[in-house]
């Protein structure tokens, strides 16, 4: 199994680079004034073991291509997974046709030639070892993670399973300004999803996982299963908290969602449309002075790292918020032009459509206190471990979400709570981040330490 996957991954690299450049040349020959081609290929393996038995095994490889063409200040895009000559011709022709019906947009276009390029050197994003385990061993990883959770406590009687996943991806990009680049990334993960039950039958689920770009750095299945079990067990016998305004502490997994709201509010697309209450606030204080947020697409091995962005611009490190002051928006070429600024190398590109805005490794700089010290400072409050729903409105700042977690009494996690809400307004919420923990760990491209927020209303009984 694994040899076939590796062979597929490496054999076609040169061909695909040529193909991307050829597509750009053909688009120009067909009348485009500028063009861009992106090719993505990848493969995936996943297995889920439930109650000790293999439940699913999935394995596949795929490849697709997208083109974006410009007709002066008009643009359009097409994509396909059909790599036959006729299929590619049809796709180019459709793109050229479509570009005639879009509007002239004075700000549309590729980046400036001088802005294009890729970070040099090995960014440590790809390791073939994610597929190095034999099939039985992969299943065994998943089984061990689940077993560790099931063995941890007799109240864990059921499970949504343990899993092992691996994937590799290869991206190739070329445009009519002469840019051509490619990179490969790999990924593997282990997860456990146990279910605990009380004597009266009430059930709770939770999960834990480890993810890495290489097999070597993956945490042991046993440690993943054990943490998953601990997170699940502590939710048993949850109560519904009463309605009141109290300090909130967010565990790192949920704290990153607050960073997500800041990103929604400071990306160029929201800014130029005035769809964010943070529009026009560059240089102003928008958060507590202890808040420092960075987006860095260059960190070797990072989950959000790439040598160039979705338009072929090198990624970089951008200080977004420094001591609470908004220092930079996150921009692609289009939104930068709209705002009279320069791109920050944050273009994201799927196969279709115009480039959006994406993140590199985006994180809140850690503080000095441990999570335990932060919790110890709260006499009556809520420690949130999970959000339900997506109730943030960046136009108004209104914020309201379902939560579950632990109630804090006298500086300690006292008992689990669920079926509650928290609500407030993000305009104040960012200023009310009163404590930041020292526990920053990347489990994805967005990461936050533990944080404390004051002034939110808990809704419940």
């Amino acid at each position, binding site marked *: 199994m694994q040899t076939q996957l590796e062979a597929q991954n490496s054999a076609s690299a040169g061909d695909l680079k040529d193909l991307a450049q050829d597509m750009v040349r053909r688009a120009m020959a067909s009348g485009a004034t500028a063009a861009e081609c992106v090719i993505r290929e990848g493969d995936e393996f996943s297995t889920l073991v439930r109650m000790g038995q293999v439940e699913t095994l999935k394995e596949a490889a795929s490849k697709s291509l997208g083109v974006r063409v410009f007709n002066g200040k008009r643009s359009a895009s097409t994509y396909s997974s059909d790599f036959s000559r006729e299929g590619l011709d049809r796709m180019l022709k459709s793109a050229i046709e479509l570009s005639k*019906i879009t509007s002239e947009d004075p700000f549309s276009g590729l980046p400036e030639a001088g802005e294009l390029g890729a970070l040099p050197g090995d960014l440590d994003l790809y390791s073939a070892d994610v597929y190095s385990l034999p099939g039985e061993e992969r299943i065994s990883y998943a089984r061990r993670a689940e077993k560790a959770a099931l063995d941890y406590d007799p109240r864990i009687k059921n499970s949504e399973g343990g899993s092992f996943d691996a994937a590799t991806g290869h991206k190739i990009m070329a445009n009519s300004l002469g840019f051509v680049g490619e990179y490969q990334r790999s990924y593997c993960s282990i997860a456990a999803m146990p279910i605990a039950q009380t004597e009266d039958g009430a059930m709770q689920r939770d999960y834990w996982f480890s993810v890495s770009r290489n097999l070597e750095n993956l945490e042991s299945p046993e440690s993943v299963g054990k943490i998953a079990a601990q997170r699940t067990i502590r939710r048993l016998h949850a109560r519904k908290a009463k309605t009141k305004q109290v300090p909130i502490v967010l565990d790192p997994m949920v704290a990153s969602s607050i960073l997500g709201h800041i990103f929604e509010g400071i990306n160029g697309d929201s800014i130029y449309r005035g769809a964010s209450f943070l529009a026009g606030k560059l240089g102003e204080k928008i958060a507590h002075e202890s808040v420092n947020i960075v987006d860095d697409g260059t960190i070797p091995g990072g989950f959000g790292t790439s040598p160039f962005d979705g338009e072929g611009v090198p990624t970089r490190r951008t200080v977004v918020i420094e001591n609470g002051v908004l220092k930079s928006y996150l921009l692609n070429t289009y939104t930068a032009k709209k705002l009279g600024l320069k791109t920050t190398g944050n273009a994201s590109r799927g196969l279709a459509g115009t480039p959006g805005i994406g993140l590199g490794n985006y994180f809140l700089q850690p503080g000095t206190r441990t999570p335990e010290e932060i919790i110890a400072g709260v006499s009556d409050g809520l420690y949130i471990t999970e959000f339900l729903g997506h109730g943030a409105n960046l136009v108004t700042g209104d914020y309201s979400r379902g939560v579950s977690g632990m109630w804090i009494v006298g500086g300690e996690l006292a008992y689990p709570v669920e079926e509650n809400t928290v*609500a407030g307004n993000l305009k104040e919420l960012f200023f009310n981040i009163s404590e930041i923990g020292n526990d920053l760990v990347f489990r994805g491209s967005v990461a936050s330490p533990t944080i404390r927020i004051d002034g939110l209303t808990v809704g419940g009984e």
Partner: protein
Amino acid sequence: MTVDKNRFFFEHYGLTERNVEQYLAAALSAGGDYADLYFEYLNSTSLSVDESMVKTASQGISAGCGVRVISGERTGYAYTDDLSPERILHAARTAALIASGPAKTPSVGFQQKAARSLYPVTLPSVDSEITAKVELVMRADAAARAFDPRIKEVRASYMDELRNILIIGSDGTFAEDSQPLARMNVGCIAKTEGNSARGSSGGGGRVALDFFFGEKTPEYFAKESARQAILQLDAREAPAGDMEVVLGPGWPGVLLHEAVGHGLEADFNRKQTSAFAGLVGKRVASDKCTIVDNGTMPWRRGSLNVDDEGHPTQTTTLIENGILKGYISDKLSSRLMGIADTGNGRRESYEHIPMPRMTNTYMLPGEDDPEDIVRSVKRGIYAVNFGGGQVDITSGKFVFSASEAYLIEDGHITAPIKGATLIGNGPDVLTRVSMVGNDLQLDEGVGTCGKDGQAVPVGVGIPTIKVDRLTVGGTARKDVGGYMQ
């Protein structure tokens, strides 16, 4: 093989009877109880207008084949986006590895069930129709801006797709379908000195382009979106805590989707991971509540002639007069649980394993006059539009987020309130439904449901109902609003 082979995949990919038999034989080469092939060819178009300019136009084709092998409770799955015989055979052999035994022979002779026709099929004709689609988004933009000078930003989009599928199973299943899906969306931002608000509206279904020139025009969606944005400019703080909640008809049916629908999907109950496990025959709602999942409604977004396992869709009663009647199921769960296959086996694409999923889920109308329902509430909220929702299947806790809601004071709808999340417990929230209106409506056709990373289009519906107690996640405190208990 006794089917009409003059069809899409046979024509476009030179698929033959011999190929299909080979693929299934390869899939069952290591044993297994069942194998199927899912061929998909998806053609999609999207257009969007922003700042009164058509900034984005894209068109794409995605095609592939997924091979599934079931052996007991185990599923092996592999897919390819290269529809050559070698790659499909490779996928079949890969999926086959889930089983370990002597080869099995697929059934000889395929049966194509009489096809239903719930939706129109017009071939995608990008060239001829594209100008009409451009007209739709431009008209939406103009109508939203004309609604009120305070509407400052408008984004309108149009998307459509035609999905051709062919499903062939080792038990003789043979089904194909052409599934159109179209949708318009209009988002607005209203601004005044120092104040902003947003609105959004949209709709569609398994309809042809003429739907948007007759039944539901761009102006209809644009005005609705603009109306919501203007209304929200004056919204006051939402109350916090438990209170009476009246849900308006239509899209607020997202309550049913989250509170009970997911929990009644057979896979969660087979694995005993749902808060509803073991509750068939028990009361889970007030006797005024009857809830169905109906995949057979003409042109609706959640409807299908056949599900993604080739099984015809149907109407399944989930809850009848408050009593839990049964689950929605796919092939795997129905076989393992010994229950009926309700035609709810769905998947996002050929890259995905089918699972039990909802189609159009709604509550049947009751006898109450909607006005009486509002009049019966002393203090509470009236919620008519929602963003989306989410549920924890295992604990039963669910949320749904109101985007347009009003205070009810002494039986009268008064001030609009800011967006707020509502939270409850699935297995008991419907036991507190004390009134059910006679005004059942289905939503406009905007719902997309996510489960285990797979998105599928769905519909919801509900008449006006009153829930005697639900937690509202606002901010207004006792001293300012008098709503906190």
